[in-house]
């Protein structure tokens, strides 16, 4: 036999490799905390005269209880104690640039549109990182340095909040290793806890982000949890409503390059900038946001082995 048409002989008619039609996203944490009910939104600072917002607290709502006063005695003034927390918004940005040649040869979806859409995910993850960067700093802590988290550490944190009369909903954002340590500990748990459906649910495979609810505490794992104790430990936070807050800002409606109109209320501004001489398209995303601890006593930091 001769002259068979073989793959090995088709060097000019076949490619060494082709690109899959769909671009795959490299492994990264994509779960974010936007809109979680345990994080207080303090409004948009557009047109408010400052990048900082002071959040006032006063001991009202029954914090000062009435006291028994005799029928013919005079009552005296009771002071209203007030404090404040400050949130300062600042610019968070991401910029990418792609050449026309890269754009026109795209067959997999890595193009201007994809880079622009990615800005929203990037903003969401930056927001999550910022929240986790403050929730490691509550003055109450539980856990033991360089020792794996166990279910008792979880209870210690939950009880700390309960004893401080912190209203729910509660959320705990562990580092993924802390979550698996909890799962490990739950496996060995006996008594009432082993029969709770939530316990069995906690042992099921978890992806990113929301990992279930244990004793009514939402568990939300994130790889963005910061380190503590010279990076030997992870410092995650468990907190209730009002512990942490954020504010943001939107820019005025503007007509950008190419006649693109960014309407009012656009939290994440994604704009394009053309460099005709270089045949390049720049994609810039801007997001103005700030976050802080509002009331320290409403949260607890869980510090255990990383």
């Amino acid at each position: 036999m001769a002259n068979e048409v073989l793959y090995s002989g088709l060097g000019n008619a076949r490619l060494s490799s082709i690109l899959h039609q769909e671009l795959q996203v490299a492994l990264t944490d994509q779960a974010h905390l936007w809109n979680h009910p345990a994080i207080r939104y303090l409004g948009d600072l557009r047109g408010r005269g400052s990048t900082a917002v002071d959040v006032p607290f006063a001991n009202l709502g029954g914090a000062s209880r009435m006291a028994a006063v005799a029928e013919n005695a005079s009552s005296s003034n009771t002071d209203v104690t007030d404090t404040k927390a400050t949130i300062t918004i600042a610019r968070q940005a991401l910029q990418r640039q792609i050449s026309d040649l890269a754009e026109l040869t795209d067959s997999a979806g890595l193009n201007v549109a994809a880079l622009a859409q990615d800005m929203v995910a990037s903003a969401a993850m930056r927001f999550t990182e910022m929240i986790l960067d403050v929730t490691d700093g509550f003055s109450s802590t539980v856990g033991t340095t360089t020792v794996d988290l166990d279910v008792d550490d979880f209870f210690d944190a939950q009880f700390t909040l309960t004893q401080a009369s912190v209203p729910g909903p509660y959320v705990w954002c562990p580092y993924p290793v802390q979550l698996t340590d909890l799962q490990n500990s739950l496996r060995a748990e006996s008594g009432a806890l082993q029969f709770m459906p939530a316990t069995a649910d906690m042992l099921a495979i978890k992806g990113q982000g929301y990992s279930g609810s244990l004793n009514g505490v939402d568990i939300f794992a994130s790889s963005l949890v910061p380190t503590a104790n010279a990076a030997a430990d992870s410092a995650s936070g468990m907190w209730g409503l009002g512990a942490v807050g954020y504010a943001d800002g939107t820019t005025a409606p503007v007509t950008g390059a190419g006649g693109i109109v960014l309407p009012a209320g656009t939290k994440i501004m994604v704009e394009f900038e053309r460099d005709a001489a270089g045949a390049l398209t720049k994609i810039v995303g801007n997001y103005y946001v700030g976050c802080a601890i509002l009331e320290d006593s409403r949260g607890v930091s869980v510090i255990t082995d990383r």
Partner: protein
Amino acid sequence: MAHTFNSQQDPGALEGNIPAPPRQAQRTLNVRANAPFYLTFHPHRWHLVGDEWLPQLGKLKVSTGVGAVDRSGDVTAAEVELRKRGWTVLPWDVCDGVYLREFPAKGGGRFYIERWATPKQVGGRVFWTIDTDAYHDWLRQLHEGGVIPTPDPDVLDALADIQRSRVERVQGVARRDTSQAAQQDLAAARSKLEAMDAATLEAAAGRQAKAPAKKATRKSTTTKGA
């Protein structure tokens, strides 16, 4: 290629430059860039290490928008916010050299970490070795140098209370579950509580040892006033 001993350079020869290493070969750590930070101390944050109480430090991240760090990275307002809540910000060179280290991070930017953490990159994965003993020594130096005060016994009691509740919980489990593991858990929880109580006594003794001078002054002032 022919060698020549002629000291005169061939005018037509070109001298090559030493090439810069390609991007892949640069010594960058396979970690995301992060913000620099200051370590912070709070009088409520203590933890038991071995048989002594050591401070559980926090961090002030120099990250715009986080905890009142402003748009230019100025931490003044953030520091004020922390101070109002009882925190002390520790300067980088607070004791025994600078405690922060930086590494070039993959994808640009710098990665900041405490100096007691040493990275090793194996096959694209970063392994960290933490010299916890040296870190704990440094914490002791902070205390001995007067940067960090002796813990308040009431704060330590409150921390021991958390452990006391844990002992009660584990005790309940151990009553129902007679397995060796449950009994070991109980023994470990009790032993930690005992260590906490002993460390609290020691801290109180240290506090008293430092206190007499102040007390004597106060007494003599009272006497003078009387």
